[in-house]
């Protein structure tokens, strides 16, 4: 297969108003490709693993940038960079789970360019799929990874359905844990979707990782004050300490009363295509003391239903250990 590294010819649109972008996206529909920071986009297009007729560059739309306090939490423009999130005082003070997660994305250089909207909307990193093979996710009828000889060390433990690619976003589990809402606009208007419902697994949609459809633009992420200043825990384990995707990550928020867990949201990353909320663990620790003993008593629940592939069995103890650490901390 040919190897490329220059951009192919295509139309380029650079709107400065979101309304214009929506109109262009609506007109181009699936002929168009939205780009913010481009950290997911350019690899696809330069490699020719995906091709489009036109690119809609959103980066000049100022209204999609910035972090605003609202009456009930904050709203983050989808084009806000990950570095801006890491450095935001209000996020650091009230929602440090998100700034911690954003701070572990890729590398400083990528965080300077990469946006929150792009990070949560990025495609999966299955190397077979990225190579341009005609797998289920790419419209074919085969999963190269889910075979006895598949090279699937980074792949999913849960909810594989013709595709076992794991989600790559580090901020996605944090946003699910924070019960965020995704603001989506199209030519027909605006709708909001709970973060937990924004991400889509292969059983529901084999070719998309989010609910975004042609013509849609993710414009903002809202984080309610519900979990502001809760007790947070984020940890990402990757082979390298920078410029690497999670092997497994954990994002957790706890509300405590007298040391007991009143409520919690515990979300694992990189164990399935979507962030995996560990509701059985949340239920099990409700009313329990947040300590090592509780953690050890429930950690195994985190992997109930896990199906290890040929090379990713290590994710089972790793996820259990991260749950233990989140609850023990």
């Amino acid at each position: 297969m040919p190897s490329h590294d220059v951009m192919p010819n295509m139309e380029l649109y650079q709107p400065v108003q979101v309304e214009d972008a929506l109109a262009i996206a609506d007109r181009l529909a699936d002929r168009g490709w939205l780009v913010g920071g481009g950290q997911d986009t350019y690899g696809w297009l330069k490699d020719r693993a995906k091709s489009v007729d036109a690119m809609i560059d959103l980066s000049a739309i100022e209204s999609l940038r910035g972090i605003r306090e609202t009456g009930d939490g904050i709203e983050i423009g989808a084009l806000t960079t990950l570095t801006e999130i890491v450095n935001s005082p209000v996020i650091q003070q009230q929602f440090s789970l998100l700034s911690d997660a954003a701070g572990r994305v890729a590398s400083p250089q990528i965080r300077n360019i990469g946006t929150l909207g792009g990070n949560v909307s990025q495609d999966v990193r299955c190397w077979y799929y990225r190579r341009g093979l005609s797998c289920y996710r790419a419209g074919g009828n085969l999963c190269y990874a889910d075979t006895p000889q598949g090279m699937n060390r980074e792949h999913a433990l849960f909810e594989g359905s013709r595709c076992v690619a794991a989600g790559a976003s580090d901020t996605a589990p944090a946003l699910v844990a924070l019960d965020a809402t995704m603001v989506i606009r199209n030519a027909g208007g605006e709708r909001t979707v709970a973060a937990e419902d924004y991400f889509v697994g292969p059983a529901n949609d084999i070719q998309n990782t989010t609910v975004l459809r042609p013509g849609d633009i993710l414009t903002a992420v809202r984080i309610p004050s519900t979990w502001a200043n809760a007790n947070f825990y984020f940890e990402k384990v990757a082979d390298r300490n920078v410029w690497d995707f999670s092997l497994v990550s954990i994002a957790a928020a706890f509300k405590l009363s007298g040391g007991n867990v009143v409520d919690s949201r515990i979300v694992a990353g990189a164990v399935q295509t979507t962030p995996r909320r560990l509701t059985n663990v949340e239920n099990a620790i409700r009313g329990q003391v947040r300590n090592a003993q509780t953690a050890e008593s429930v950690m195994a629940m985190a992997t109930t239903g896990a199906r290890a592939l040929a090379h990713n069995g290590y994710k089972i103890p790793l996820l259990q250990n991260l749950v233990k650490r989140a609850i023990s901390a």
Partner: protein
Amino acid sequence: MSTHIGRDFTPPCVPGKVTGEIKYAEDYRREGMVFARLLTSPLPSGRVVNIDASEALRMDGVVGIFTADDLPPVAPPGNPALASEYVTYVGQPILAVAAITEEIAESAIDRIRIDFERRDFVVDPIESLTPGGSNAYPEGNVLVRTREEGPEGAPIIGAEIKDIKWPQSAIDAIKSGREPVGGEFTTEWAFGDIEAGFAAAAAIVEEPFVTMGYPHHSLEARTGMAYWENGKCYFHGSSQSQSANNAGLARMLNIDLADLVFINEATGGGFGSKIGPYPFMAITGNFARVLNRPVQLRITREQEFYIGSARSGMQGWIKIGVKADGKVSAVDLVIVNDGGATGGGSGNSSAQHVTVAYQPENMRYRGISVYTNTTPRGAQRGPGQNEMAAVLAPMTDKAAAAISMDRVAFRRVNAINSDGFEGGSQGPVTSAFVREALDQGRRMFGWDEKLAQPKAMGGSKVRGIGVGIGYHGAGGRGYDGLVRIGTDGRLYIHSGVGNLGTYSYAGTCRAAAEALQVPWENCEIVHGRSDRHLPHSSGQGGSNTIFTHTRTNWVAAQDAISKLKEIAAADLGGAAADYIIGDQRVFRSADSSIGMTYAQAAQRAIQMGGKYSGQEYPDDINPLTQLAVQGVAGSGLIGVAKDNIPGQGQPPGILVGFCEIEMDKDTGKFEILDYAAIADCGTVVHPKNFDNAMRGGAVWGVGLANLERHVYDPQNGLPANTGLYQSKPPTNMDVPVQTYAGAVNIPDPQNPTGGRGIGEPTQGAAAAALASAISDALDGHLFNTAPTTTDMIINHLAGNSYSTQSLKTNTF
């Protein structure tokens, strides 16, 4: 007292590298230049049935296509620049297309249709050795070196591909970690009596092991730009070396040495993959000739993964016998190398590492290198030695534990010294001071103090402490030096050493300045393109340059000194022996007022002609050096000589590394708390650069021990990690902020400047020390793998078995 050697200076290319002004091959443009891109194989193995480029050739802006038919045929087992009939790995170049822009060239390759016939493929050498297993080439699966008697008894050394299968019992044995009895090997040697050695052992360690190959990832993907003028080829290339390219590249282009101008002012990394001219260079130069216009052939990052070559992987088995006093009495070693598409392995170098690390009393080595349908393999920083160091270190620790001996003390008992030997032939070394390095490192690192600290570090954290040894042969002999004293009095040091990023091209020139006692500001290094008249030089690989070219510059300077004295004696009377040099003058030792400046002597050399100004030169210098001397003849006083400094033995580069880690048993991750290394590399020629080499090598050692590996899907022969982010070379956050390096700094007696090389062992020692520390943190558990990755550590701690693919290469 030394004026240059052992003192810091700033190599002249540094400002250009910092500001970006320096040019790499890709930066050059030429009027009428076109851009060529490669079309590569999508299959791991197949036959090219038909190529239809008609649609591409009809595109506006496309100027030509270049295939194997445009190059001389290369018979197996050669590595052709372009595949002719058979393709043997994904990414193998099949043809090049040239166009007036890169965009058009890339679009054109998408419009070329190739019909292939698929062939069986194999990505695992053991599978290829199995009865009924696939062969990577139609002719077979093993590269065999041949040696036949030619005319008048002269040996003819060659290579061929053979089909070798092992009995199933040997396959079963090596897969289960036992000696593959009955397996056929292509390299075998032994010394002593290993059975007697094992019989004398108080303890025996017997282990299987596997090391993964992985690519070089040179930041500068190998780009070339070539054009022809008046029958000469001007070739801008990316190479570790300078003069070492000329002869081979001239052959590729079928021209005389004098008709090639090779230009390479700076190179963005090579690490062994760009030592000499690589096959792909033939495309650029010959395509430019066919098109009669300048051609730039740039490759992609992914193509650099494919054709940039890679370290060979190995699967092996070792048995080590240790006497009660710690002396290694016997070693039995088996290595099956993954030779990729080029077939060569480095098992013999791995065995050589064992001889240096242990100085065993008895040893046997058996090796075979098997072709697989994976990327070409070649030299990569300490090929063989460094990966062996990584897997050997924990086994060495196990052997020490078996006789209740401290790990550093064990290594000290077995350390090589100046009377020691290296390799299966037990050849001598020029000098070695490893015991001194171990003692110095033990103190510097605080080995005993760290050992006394508790292993548990709180929570899930445990401490691990490790030690390892890296080795590589570090020097050559017989190359040429060339210096010129100009009529301006300046010293022009002509260097055929490549600027590969190690700055050895500059460091070695300090020997000439030292010998001629010229201040550095009055010296100029002439390098970077062969029409600047550069002498025959070694390739910049194998850590050889410091030893090799401090000597060549030294002997050239000595020749210049002799001529200075002769000129002075001719003009001022007396004998040459009556004169000495100093302060850039040559003068009578008895009366310093009787003398002349270097500038005056250079003027007189031109007037006197002959050997003094290069019209005559020694008979024993290389043809390339002869051309260089002819080029500078008449422009000053010429010092030129072949390095005939007497001596024998291999100059060794040896490094001892010490590492302390904090291992998190929950996550399998660790932090390197401390790393210190002590070099036995003779005199440190350039301290600042020595520190850089120590740091850079240590970083890559972390990659070897923990992160980097080839992964191929055995179902379709596709590589899983062609990109940098997938291949995971270490980042600045994966290595300690501060590391510590020192040197024994005892001069090598066979180099007038005292120096030996040290580049390659810097990686091996760090990898070995880290592997030793990982094992120590986990109570001596042996992974027997390089790398030992996060998932392996987690699986071990969780009590999981390894994956079913454990101890295979090219896999997770």
